[in-house]
């Protein structure tokens, strides 16, 4: 029942309705059939509330396959600027090398690209937070996708004997080192997304050897 008096949230914008409509089906697909989107954002800083996205890189992954033909890479115009972060991601405020779009355009395009896919990222909570705050600025609710995190999944594969510090947080660099992945284009959204995708495939193969793995077991929400 819809009671206007209690409904605090305003009607979401049209683009969000279209996106949300894709989540009608409740059953999870088989692991091999599931569509994953591995993504990463470069931002002006490390605070999801204050900082803004500068670029998004995302790749589609199904089974053991990454299709470069459906990939997503955008650079975003931002007023918020942080000099310190430039040293990490190397994205300048004014750069003519790549065309930039507005945050609104970027978020709309991103939602269209991900659809109801399962999101994968390294410390993905932050990247999802960044997108969610951008959605909020557009008057839209949060992302509805299922997600999983390569940092958390990797930790499950480390042999008990070798866990010296149970609270250790594995960085993407740690994973590259341990899983033998070349660190090209590190700290570019697309480069990190690709590295994360390879890490995801490798970690999944390690997890799969132990038992019959179900999609549900790797999801974090």
């Amino acid at each position: 029942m819809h009671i206007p008096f209690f409904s605090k949230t305003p009607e979401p914008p049209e683009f969000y309705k279209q996106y949300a409509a894709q989540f009608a089906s409740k059953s999870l697909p088989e692991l091999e059939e599931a569509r994953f989107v591995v993504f990463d954002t470069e931002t002006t800083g490390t605070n999801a509330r204050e900082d803004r996205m500068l670029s998004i890189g995302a790749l589609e992954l199904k089974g053991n396959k990454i299709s470069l033909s459906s990939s997503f890479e955008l650079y975003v115009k931002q007023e918020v600027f942080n000099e310190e972060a430039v040293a990490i991601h190397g994205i300048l405020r004014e750069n003519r090398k790549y065309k930039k779009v507005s945050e609104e355009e970027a978020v709309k395009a991103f939602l269209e690209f991900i659809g109801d896919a399962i999101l994968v990222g390294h410390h993905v909570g932050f990247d999802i937070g960044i997108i969610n705050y951008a959605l909020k600025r557009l008057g839209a609710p949060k992302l509805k996708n299922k997600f999983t995190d390569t940092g958390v999944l990797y930790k499950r594969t480390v042999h008990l004997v070798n866990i010296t510090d149970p609270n250790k947080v594995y960085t993407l660099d740690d994973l590259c080192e341990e899983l033998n992945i070349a660190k090209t284009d590190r700290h570019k959204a697309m480069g990190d997304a690709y590295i994360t995708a390879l890490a995801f495939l490798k970690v999944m193969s390690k997890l799969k050897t132990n038992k019959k793995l179900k999609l549900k077991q790797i999801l974090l929400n």
Partner: protein
Amino acid sequence: MKNTIAERVADFLKRYPPFQFLAADSLLQIAAQVQVLYFEKDKAIFKEKDTNHSMFYVVKDGAVRVFRTVDNQPKIADICDEGDIFGLRPLITKEDYELSASANEESIIYGIPIDLFLPIALAHKEVSNFLIASFASNVSDPYSLEESGKLFTEYSVERNSEIFDLQKARYSKNILTCSPDTTIKVAAKKMSHRDVGSIVVTHEEKPVGIITNRDLRDRIATGDFDISDSVDKIMSKPVKCFQKDPTVAQAQLIMLKNEVNHLCITEDGTPDTKLLGLITEHDIVVSFANNPVVLLKEVKLAKRTKRLRDVRLKVSRLLKKYLDQNLPVSQILNILNEINYAIAVRALELSLLKMETPPPCKFAWLALGSQGRKEQLLFTDQDNAIVFDNVPEEEYEATQAYFIKLARITTRAMHKVGYAYCPADMMASNHRWCQSLSEWKKQYHIWITDPSPETQLLSAIFFDYSYVFGDTQLVTKLSDSILDTLDANPMFYRVMAKDAIRSPSPLGFFRQFLVEEGGDHKDFFDIKARALMPLIDAARVLSLNHKLRNINNTAGRFERLAELEQNNKEIYENCSYAFKALLKFRTKQGILHDDSGRFIELATLSKAEKLKLKRCFKSIHDIQELLTLRYNLK
């Protein structure tokens, strides 16, 4: 839209033919449509008679084996490495796959859609020429090159011996030479520097004579000539020459007829034309492959990890042959371990060359677990550790970092050769297993004096180590310290003995086999945990108690124990026999099913095999009784 990854893919592809012939924009167009595929070791990419995938493949990382199934046995046609193309021919001929392809190790592969590639390829003359040339070239195994699209192949693993004699002999093209007026001393130095047994004396690039180790022995060491004389005084001349591309059979015949061990290859086969190469008797013997002496030699001369892998593949076949011939297991173990050991040593030597500086102090490389016990028949995981000399505290970190780096390079090389990484990371590249002598002593002291569940887990691996490479003194000191600590803590023997009787007898009350009750291997018999491990554990604790050194393999340990304890001689001898029988059993099962052979499906065993297994279990029962009594475990 900009696509960073497609640019990287293009950067990779442009290093290899035929992509190198393409213009940057066409290449980028192709790269943007690439599919990146990940395959675990041994996962199939495509199988014979599958309909083609409408894309062909390029190996990005790892290696892929392409093979045909003949009489249910895989026959390897080729192994594709980084940058190699495979699976292209069926796309062009529009047929199903004639060969199968599987990941030979963990691999990342690019899939390129043919519909996109073909029009671009046909528009570039170089690309189509390359493709035609690759399909048309003729080699020992016609399938391999057609399938892989390579012009030359380093691997042609399986050879048919009839056509083999007609094969081109392999010879070195990079020949050590000197002029006739060189002094013998300089020539000998050159030979020793390059570590070769011969030097060709040339005049205007034409071979005039040759000096071999034998000449140095017969003419210099005897004092007949002086080392300051010029080489033309002692060289053998004229040299036997032959034209380009002799077959193995031809080369061998000429050598036999002329009683020489070296043959020069010249442009027209006479000594009056330019020198092109040199065939030695060794080259010929190596072509005849599969005998252990040759394999060992090949390992020692290997300059690249690839060649070690080649040897490894041959070793697997050697093992199968030996088992078919029913040779005694102890003998097979000896031979295989010599080769495994040599491969490890060579891999380390090669890795040391890759390090920028020599090691900062003495160190030793240890093999652990089954490798340490020298019981490795099938290729299993690598378990290894480094112990280095004690260094001042301020240098410790840097020293450890150096050895970890060395270990990383080495374990990676070993991985390429075919020894899988240890899933529990018990490798010298883990800082816990790369420590100084005193740190190791401390570690063992903790394990022995304060046994925890972790110790139980690790002792099986770390109390069976053997020296592989480096400084032997360090290992002796470590062993001394461990034996002393054990002496002071006899309780530890009890802990170990308890561990050894933990797995109950493999037979149930009704003399039926106890099988696994759950998991992936439900209803399979776990021969490792239930039969081999109890024997291994028992042998370890008893021989540590007797302070037996330098005998690590279980069968050997039991034999030695039988000599020491006359009253239990029979039990020990039976155990030794049982262990060898079980190991052979496991190995045969492993070869049959192409896995570690650990889990046995009882339904596939014959009655006789089951009986034989059961006879072995009697010894397990006896040795467990002995341990229970001796260490008061009841």
